[in-house]
């Protein structure tokens, strides 16, 4: 494995535990509050369900990208200190 790749993976290993905590809390919230409305839309309002599915998955992708950026920046700032 190239040296640069190894360095990059080491820095990511520092970020992962914090990310896991954030994501675990997020999953509990999502499953708790979205399961019921999404299930009922799936059963009775398929068009609404399809639209919500796309918005949720794209939106979540952007939010998670932002979260990883913030986590990386926070860890970078801590290291510099």
């Amino acid at each position, binding site marked *: 494995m*190239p040296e*640069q*790749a190894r360095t*990059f*993976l080491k820095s*990511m290993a520092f*970020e*992962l535990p914090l*990310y896991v905590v954030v*994501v675990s809390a*997020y*999953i509990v919230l*999502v*499953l708790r509050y*979205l*399961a*019921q409305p*999404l*299930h009922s839309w*799936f059963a009775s309002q*398929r*068009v609404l*369900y*399809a*639209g*919500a*599915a*796309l918005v*949720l*998955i*794209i939106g*979540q*992708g*952007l939010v*998670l*990208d932002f*979260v*990883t950026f913030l986590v990386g920046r926070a860890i970078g700032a801590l290291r510099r200190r």
Partner: protein
Amino acid sequence: MLFPISHVQIAPAYLVALGFVVGVFGGFFGVGGSFLAGPVLFGFGLPMNFVVGTDLAHIAGKSVVAARRHHKLGNIDYRLGLLMVIGTIPGVELGAQLIEYLKRTAHVDVVVGSCFVAILLATAAFMTWETTKTLRASRGERAAKRDLNYLRRLSRWIQRVGPPPYVNLPVSNIRRLSVPVLVLVSFVGGLFSGFLGGGAGYIRMPSLIYIVGVPTHVAVATDLFEIIISAGYGTISHALKGNVDILIALVMQTGAAIGAQIGAQLTEYYKGVQIRMAFIPLPIIGAALIVYGLLSGHPFQ
């Protein structure tokens, strides 16, 4: 834990781990990762029509993350990606209609599973042959540095003979390419995407490199950009048909988001032929998993 939409019981931690692994592969190889996620979800007990739709939804979200990272690295050929959408959307729709037909005949698991295995093994065999030839023909070192591939002559010939209109793709270093050829390549990719699920990167990424002649790094990134559009469309189409469990896709994506960023960044440290060689075992693993799933029921439950 019970997911009420598909009525399947899966531990969320497994889904996050699966998403992470598929995310790394997706970011690194420019594929949606359905060659791995599809068989594993099937193994978890998800019916095959839900596997196809749910995997597409998860891939749409994950590709946003990976494509953003590739955008920052300047690897995406947007003109190429947007032109490919013209062929991809009809292909995805035709594939989704085929799934609907098979659902009515009750053979969906066997037919989709068998096609999946055949395509995966053919892709792996072809790429093994090509990378071996490339490394032998140009003594490895030079090929790696210049991102050569053994079928370069084929892509150059296709660039010369395709019917008009033509397009110039400076990001991909292609002076002239036939738009109908590009649309046909993307239509085939879309067909596999709608029929087998995922972004069909296992077909489109090799097609972009070997048929269209796009450099490996640009093919990886542009494929991801194109997957956002095709998988997004596929998500809507399959959700309307009742094939998407979006809760499963959302949980998987939490792992995939970080994995995709890692994979995308790693492409910076490897050469084209190395990326293609590393890709080869993945379709074989996917094929083995789906054969095992078809023969033995739901082995991971």
